[in-house]
């Protein structure tokens, strides 16, 4: 017994591909003449927000020494416990960090360290290109932190929430 097949009679304007193709081509053609949004990274870079919080940088005094006075506030406030600080004295007898290490893998980039710093020494950077050959390379010591030159984050200001 043959199985009865019901042939549907569909309107030509619904099943024709010509209209859809033309519609798609039209959209493509429209984008051809629009402004291009693709950024040719890494040759070309997109600017980031002034409040961007990336890997750290330690600012220095005019003599090239780190501004840090080893007060211990950043390791205290750090929610990820990523800052290691051993306070000591420098040659002039000033309070100075003997060891200052930030584990960038542990860091959650909250920016509290920059906010709490009374000397405006430690900053989170406007910087996102991080690569190292080893995991240990992501523990930034004082030398690494002071030698970096990228711009630093401008913190969120409650009186100027839009950063104007």
């Amino acid at each position, binding site marked *: 017994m043959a199985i009865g097949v019901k042939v549907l009679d569909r309107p030509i304007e619904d099943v024709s591909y010509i209209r859809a193709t033309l519609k798609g081509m039209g959209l493509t053609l429209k984008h051809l003449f629009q402004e291009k949004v693709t950024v040719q990274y890494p040759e070309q870079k997109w600017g980031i927000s002034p409040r961007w919080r990336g890997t750290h940088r330690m600012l220095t005094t005019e003599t090239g020494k780190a501004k840090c*006075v*080893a*007060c*211990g*506030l950043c390791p*205290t406030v750090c929610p990820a416990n990523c800052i290691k600080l051993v*306070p*000591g*004295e420098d040659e002039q007898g*000033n*309070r100075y960090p003997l060891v200052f290490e930030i584990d960038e893998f542990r860091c959650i980039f909250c920016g509290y360290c920059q906010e709490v710093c*009374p*000397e405006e020494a430690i900053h989170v950077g406007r910087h996102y290109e991080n690569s190292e050959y080893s995991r240990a390379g992501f523990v930034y010591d004082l030398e690494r932190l002071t030698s970096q030159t990228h711009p630093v984050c401008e913190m969120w200001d409650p009186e100027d929430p839009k950063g104007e």
Partner: protein
Amino acid sequence: MAEAKMVNLTIEGRTVSVPEGTSILEAAKTVGILIPHYCYHPSLPIPGVCRMCLVEVEKAPKLSPSCATSVAEGQVVHVHSERALEARKGVLEFLLINHPLDCPICDKSGECELQDFTYQEGPAESRLRDPKRFNPVEDFGGDIMYVPNRCILCTRCVRFMDDVAHDTVLNISERGDRALVGKFEGKDLTHAWAGNIVDLCPVGALLSKDFLNKARAWELDRAASICPNCPQGCNIMIEVRDNSIARLKPRPNDDVNKFFICDYGRLNYRWMNRQDRAELPMVRNGANLAVAEWEVAIHSAARLLKDAKPFVLASPMLSNEALFLLTRLLERKGGTGVFRVATGEEAPLPGVEDLALRRDRAANVHGAELLGYTRSENPLADLGADDVLVIADDDLRGMTVEAAARAKGVIVIGTAVPDGLDNISVVLPIANFTEEEGTFTNLRGRVQRFTQAKSPPGQARPSWLVLGDLLGALGAQDSFFLPSDVFADLANARPEFSGLTYDKLGMRGLPVLNAETAGATR
């Protein structure tokens, strides 16, 4: 003493009843109100110079300094009234005029009274537009340095040196806003108790050179303990950072040391952090000592002691608990227990009765004598040929050890393996007193508890646990689970300690029966 007349008054709406002659400040403390103050300290005379403790007393024309005003019947005191707060805010603003606000680099930050009270009720901003006064940092000799910029001239240090240490070294030099604490010509802070002015200083003006820049106050973990350096038994607080002791501070106890500890005790803490400790149990294997399991080491020690007479060379730094368990070991075969003590010069604090750095330089000399150990200059003289020598935490330093060769075996139960002994059979590593709990008996027979401040290195175990296990392996008794169990056993066995428990001792201690201190209550 006749019963003092009680006075009733109201402080901040709370009724207080205190003996006649008490200051308002002390009366407020009894109901949990801390009136801000700088120059006042309970152990020093009251000069009333800082004006920080001003409170409003009803019907008094002016605000009264609460440290120097005695309580009176029916007085109504307002500590936080608008007038009092305004006055204290003014005082704080004056104190902060020349204060450098260098809290980030100040060692006192976190435990500074100026910081605390400024946060509580001080002005948010300074109105001073002129440059601040500047004076260079000065070395005061001893362990102390002086940062004049931070000084608020409360004169606590001057009064301590004059009235408690009876060694006039400090004064207030210059006048007006140039005033600062100075040293008399040719004098230095070399008094044996001078270090206390660092604790007395309410701000960061007087600093310990030893602790300088080492740690912040809020990073330190604190444990109540007893100073182990002499039989005086001063109460201390051990402050630890990263499992390493950073400093020792006095802990107030009116019956022993008031608020003070001597510089010798304060600075002699480095041995507690020593790194060359015995960390693993060891048993002799031919010519060498080989690392062994705890069970194996305990059992080989027990095998040695099974039939031999023990000869215990104990350290007077051991707790009552450890010394007591060692006497249990001695009782089995009738052995002898001896100890030796290093001595030094006695250094009293003249302003406080019966407080001195004593000649003996070990904490539990009295406890060891009470428990039946003999003090000896040449402790190994009586060591018999068939005895097993048990060295309990004595480092054998400065002592002839040839006699030890006579022994049938040598068991070291100690924090470190002593040098110069080549016939050690077993080493059982124990925790030092900062790493375990226990009690010391001071020279007036006061039993005081100390608590654990840091963790022991490697596999070292508390002394009472090791000795309990050793006695267990000898079939003498069950093991102990807590130091309080050992102390309960001690209280049962020794009439002097009867009735004492850890709970009863609390953190201030109690004297043993028939202690020398008259009037001491149990």
